[in-house]
């Protein structure tokens, strides 16, 4: 079996579903541009057509071909991205996280403030925050409709852009230059890349790509 890095993106139904999907697909596309094997998909069991319910999007990255495509959850993510910060209050977003994994939250609050809502933060290798709402100035752009809906506004025009920029910086899994070819809001992506804040913990491992501070 191929060694696979998993990224799970948490977002909310309808109002932010497209942003969550953009984060996963833009990041996955950028990684694929480096010749890696990538899968990007929605969690099939979630309810993307119900407003504000938590929904998940997944990315899988590997140097080898990923044989199995019938498994529709990332059970052991290396990276967890939370596109809407209140999600951490109600859900154990770190469930199944690989030891020393990474959490990235879209918030303008200090890291220490966010940590009080994450009781199992001791499993983390590092936590990063990016104020994507502040950078984009808008929360979301459009609901494009899941499952074959029209996507007229393009990918990465809202908060997805700064978030993928932040992800590129702290995971080292994707190149900023490649993301710039994919997202619509390139300036927002660059700001996310530059403005992300990172705090490393004892379990921090450099094995996770080339994790950069």
């Amino acid at each position: 079996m191929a060694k696979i890095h998993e990224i799970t993106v948490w977002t909310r139904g309808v109002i932010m579903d497209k942003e969550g999907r953009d984060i996963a697909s833009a990041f996955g596309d950028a990684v694929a541009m480096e010749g890696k094997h990538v899968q990007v998909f929605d969690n099939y069991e979630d309810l993307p057509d119900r407003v504000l319910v938590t929904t998940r999007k997944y990315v899988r990255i590997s140097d080898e071909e990923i044989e199995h495509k019938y498994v529709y959850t990332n059970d052991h993510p290396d990276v967890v991205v939370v596109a809407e910060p209140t999600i951490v209050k109600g859900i154990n977003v770190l469930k199944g996280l690989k030891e020393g994994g990474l959490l990235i939250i879209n918030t303008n609050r200090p890291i220490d403030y966010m940590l009080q809502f994450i009781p199992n933060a001791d499993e983390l290798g590092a936590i990063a925050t990016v104020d994507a709402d502040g950078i984009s100035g808008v929360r979301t752009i459009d609901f494009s409709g899941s499952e074959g809906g029209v996507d007229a506004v393009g990918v990465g025009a809202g908060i997805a852009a700064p978030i993928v920029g932040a992800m590129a910086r702290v995971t080292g899994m994707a190149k900023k230059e490649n993301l710039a070819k994919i997202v619509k809001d390139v300036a927002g992506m660059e700001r996310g890349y530059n403005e992300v804040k990172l705090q490393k913990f004892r379990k921090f491992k450099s094995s996770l790509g080339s994790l950069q501070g």
Partner: protein
Amino acid sequence: MAQEKMLTGCSAAAQALKLAEVEVICSYPIRPYTAIMMELSKMVANGELDAEFVHGEGEHAQLSVVLGASACGARAVTGSAGVGVTYAFELYSPVAGGRYPLQMTIADRTLDPPGDFGSEHTDAMSTRDQGWILGWASTPQEVFDNTLMGYRIGEDPRIMLPQMTCQDGYFISHIPDKVKLADLKQVKEFLPPYSAPHPISTTCPVSHGPQIRPDQGAPMDAQRAATFLDLPKVIKEATEDYNRIFGRNYDPFLEKYKLEDAEIAFFIQGAHSNTCRTAVDTLRKQGLKAGMARPRWVRPWPTREIAEALGHVKAVGSIETSTSYGGAMRGGNLIHELRASLYDLDERPLTTSFMAGLGGETIWPEDFEFMAKVLSQMVREKRAQKYVYWIGFEE
């Protein structure tokens, strides 16, 4: 040249329906088949497809609308999933009995309770005695191909029957795969325009579906049964034409994978046959002569072809992705008809069944290895220990 694209099963179905130039579409949303209707509605809105798009107020209405459309001579399509399929149940017999060759495109979903998006074939399987042509695809490509083949077979003047073209929810409906599309010219060569023999008309009135006397009922049933005897011939012709025109290589009834010298075989329909094929290869590397048979159609059931393909095998395990509670074999549906198909052979394989992939669970390569162990043990002991094994619940 026909294009090749990465498409989900839902998109593949919509692309084929567009090429079939369907004239009336009736939708009602339910995951996972909904995406087929979303694609079709886009095509109609963009002017790529000249069809009447009707929003039904439920699945019962959906089937009623396409029944009427087909009675007027239109090529009609509707579709559903899970409990949507069962909500429409009353209409299945009238559609088949009225000989309306419309198509229902289905992406399977588990029935309630309590509600689950996963694929399980019980939804469409439970309609199998209603007189429809019924079959499962195993890839988005096959969804595309079966959609076109369905109309050709169903609309054949010798047949005139509705078709359910099924695909597993999520596994096929939502995962993109390579799909070779077709040119309209190829489709025109393969699929003639639909011509209803007695369409409802304002200028030439005809009666459809009048009340009949009891003594008129049996002849109609006998006629329908006789049509099903003619179906294999028509399916064979249509598949051969399809293979020739579109450059495919389908067996009309059964995909046979490494069966020639097989000692044990899996009998499986739908998406999980892809994992099964890989498992067969792995088992063969371990020295076990394994094979796989995959039925493409459940109605008509390929009795003779199954006897021919599996007669020489020592043990066959039927993998059941649908339920038949309290049935003869205490588990699924396929095993009953598989055993019946093998019964008249002088020397017949041992058989058992495996409940797997229910509720949309993935069937893992290791699950197939477990099943192979059971089948090998049956060969050694020359007997089956159980009618059914529930994968994941066995010691």
